[in-house]
């Protein structure tokens, strides 16, 4: 072993105090790095770095079998439920309607309608109230300009009958209007479930990736290169793109299936709320995503992730349960449609039920947007401060204090 040690560092001479290790072939690219001389690509800015991070998140998901399978299952379930609904719905018997006098001609020879002739208006209404017929077609009052008949129904709009009539007569409901209980329940349930599945699915992915990076210490390597904010932004962006794409795909499959199976009527009712749902989901997911990421950054091990995620999990599941249990309670739905965490489900359901004015989704969306910006800023602070803290769970107060 050589013991001389007279190399002047400034001359850049090779160190001789070593058992000269076998020099490998030249550096890739054929050049040994020379500090201050090699041309170096400019460092990516926050946006570019975030895009790179987002790209990695998307690619990692798209290539994972579990993601592909779960997406296929989800889309398949939507498709099957709609097609099944159509097939079962198609077997419904012809709609029985009571007719009085001259009104009978209107209903005659109409497919899907079975007229029951009765003597007078009182008898017709008695049949409606007893539920034997779904509606009564009565001759129009003299003061009714234009319409030849008027229709009386119990508690739901006899849409089949109305559609069958060439002219659109006035409909008089004996009880306050209510959407079909079953459809109402199913659509609310659908919005709630899709939100629940997508938000928890992608939220958990964000949380897992965050903890995995922390646990495997990739994060030290990443943070030596890019800022925590760029990392967080990329993570949220990548997963939001995935979640949005998946939700939009579900919406597209639902619309296509409804159109193909000829359920234009449901489509007409669901179409606009569906567009709002996708829009609300996009913002609402970003809101939840930043909470998932910030929560997960508090712990260092996969085993601990469950505890920190339970609050945000509750927030994600709340709209689902609220909409399932309270979809016939306008007060609860109205509150839901403005609270940012439940608005993505609450507002589309209200729009579907026709209970919301045109400006309400806009106001709610603004509230959601503002909340999201605020939460992202807060989440970024927590993420930034706890990402490199390893060991026991970081207390929220520690992450936000000082």
């Amino acid at each position, binding site marked *: 072993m050589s013991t001389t*040690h007279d190399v002047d560092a400034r001359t850049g001479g090779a160190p001789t105090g070593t058992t000269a290790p076998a020099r490998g072939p030249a550096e*890739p690219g054929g050049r040994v*790095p020379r*500090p201050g001389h090699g041309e170096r*690509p400019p460092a990516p800015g926050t946006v570019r770095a975030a895009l790179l991070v987002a790209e990695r998140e998307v690619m*990692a998901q798209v290539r994972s079998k579990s993601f592909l399978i779960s997406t296929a299952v989800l889309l398949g379930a939507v498709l099957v439920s709609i097609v099944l609904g159509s097939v079962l719905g198609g077997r419904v018997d012809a709609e029985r309607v009571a007719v009085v006098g001259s009104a009978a001609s209107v209903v005659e020879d109409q497919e899907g309608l079975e007229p029951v002739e009765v003597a007078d208006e009182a008898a017709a209404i008695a049949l409606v109230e007893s539920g034997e017929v779904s509606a009564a077609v009565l001759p129009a009052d003299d003061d009714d300009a234009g319409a030849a008949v008027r229709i009386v129904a119990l508690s739901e709009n006899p849409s089949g009958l109305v559609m069958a009539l060439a002219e659109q007569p006035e409909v008089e409901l004996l009880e306050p209007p209510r959407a079909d209980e079953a459809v109402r329940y199913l659509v609310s349930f659908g919005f709630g479930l899709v939100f629940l599945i997508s938000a928890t699915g992608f939220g958990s992915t964000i949380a897992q990736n965050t903890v995995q990076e922390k646990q*495997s210490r990739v994060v030290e390597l990443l943070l030596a290169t890019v800022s925590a904010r760029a990392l967080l932004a990329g993570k949220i962006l990548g997963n939001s793109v995935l979640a949005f794409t998946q939700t939009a795909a579900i919406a597209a499959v639902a619309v296509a299936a409804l159109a193909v199976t000829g359920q234009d009527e449901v489509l007409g009712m669901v179409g606009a709320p569906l567009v709002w749902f996708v829009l609300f989901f996009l913002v609402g997911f970003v809101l939840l995503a930043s909470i998932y990421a910030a929560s997960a950054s508090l712990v260092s091990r996969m085993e601990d992730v469950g505890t920190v995620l339970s609050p945000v999990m509750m927030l994600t599941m709340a709209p689902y349960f609220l909409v399932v249990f309270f979809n016939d309670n306008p007060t609860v739905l109205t509150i839901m449609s403005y609270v940012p965490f439940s608005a993505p489900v609450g507002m589309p359901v209200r729009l579907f039920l026709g209970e919301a004015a045109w400006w309400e989704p806009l106001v709610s969306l603004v509230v959601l947007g503002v909340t999201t910006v605020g939460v992202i800023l807060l989440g970024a602070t927590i993420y930034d401060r706890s990402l490199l803290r390893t060991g026991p769970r970081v207390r929220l107060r520690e992450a936000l204090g000082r």
Partner: protein
Amino acid sequence: MLVVDGIRRSFGDRLVLDDVGFTVERGRLTGFVGGNGAGKTTTMRIILGVLSADAGTVTLDGTRLGPDQRRLFGYMPEERGLYPKMKVAEQIAYLARLHGVDRTTATERAHALLERLGLGARADEPLENLSLGNQQRAQIAAALVHEPEVLVLDEPFSGLDPLAVDVVVGVLAEYAAGGAPVLFSSHQLDVVERLCDDLVIIADGRIRAAGPREQLRAAHSEPRWEIDSAGDVGWLRGVPGVEVLDFDGGWAVFTTADDAVAQGVLRRALDSAPVASFAPVRSTLAEIFREVVADRTPEEAVR
């Protein structure tokens, strides 16, 4: 050159780094040694800005380190970190791209580097399929792929077989020869001893010794000689001023404060029997390390 100065850092009430300061010269391999929990990793993380210091500065050629300077660093964290399910070459290329390298160049570089580190055949497998030693090589590739100008490596040799150690040593020496400051920590004192030009020894969060390796060796060695002769050297015990440390027939290690006495011993040995070797004994790094770390007063440590 990289200068660490007056770094102080506490975790809660515990002071883990106390006025830590040393220099990593350009073109020199600087070994950073210390016991478990001495503060090596914390120091390296502070240099990389992954952790903040409570006080003190880190400068490169006089400039305080910011994100722009740190981007030129190649870093290998103590706990190895890469994505387990991502393909090896892909994640090395990803890290290069985060440094601003375009996709094509990044991919080429990743493959070339892995080839050189002996991982060429495994480049397209997920990291988790690789053995620990091979994951370690991938980690080294991750630290080098953006052609850094400063290297800070925490335990780069742990878990590597001797051949892999040689490959990595070759790469590090090449970087140093190119004029880069190279700082690495290691528990393997024999590797550090063989490889490094300068040494920094840390214990209990304080720098106990720092400087060129030979200087430290000289400073921490009692003058000792080793003699190997064909005849019995039992007479050594009777020489005034000589203390025999170890003895086995014709072989002995002895210490004496006076060079002239040692020369006298050699002459007498030559007169009595053929001498195969006679040489001063240098302390090994392990010995220096024990001595320096056991010595609790840093004032006595050589700077």
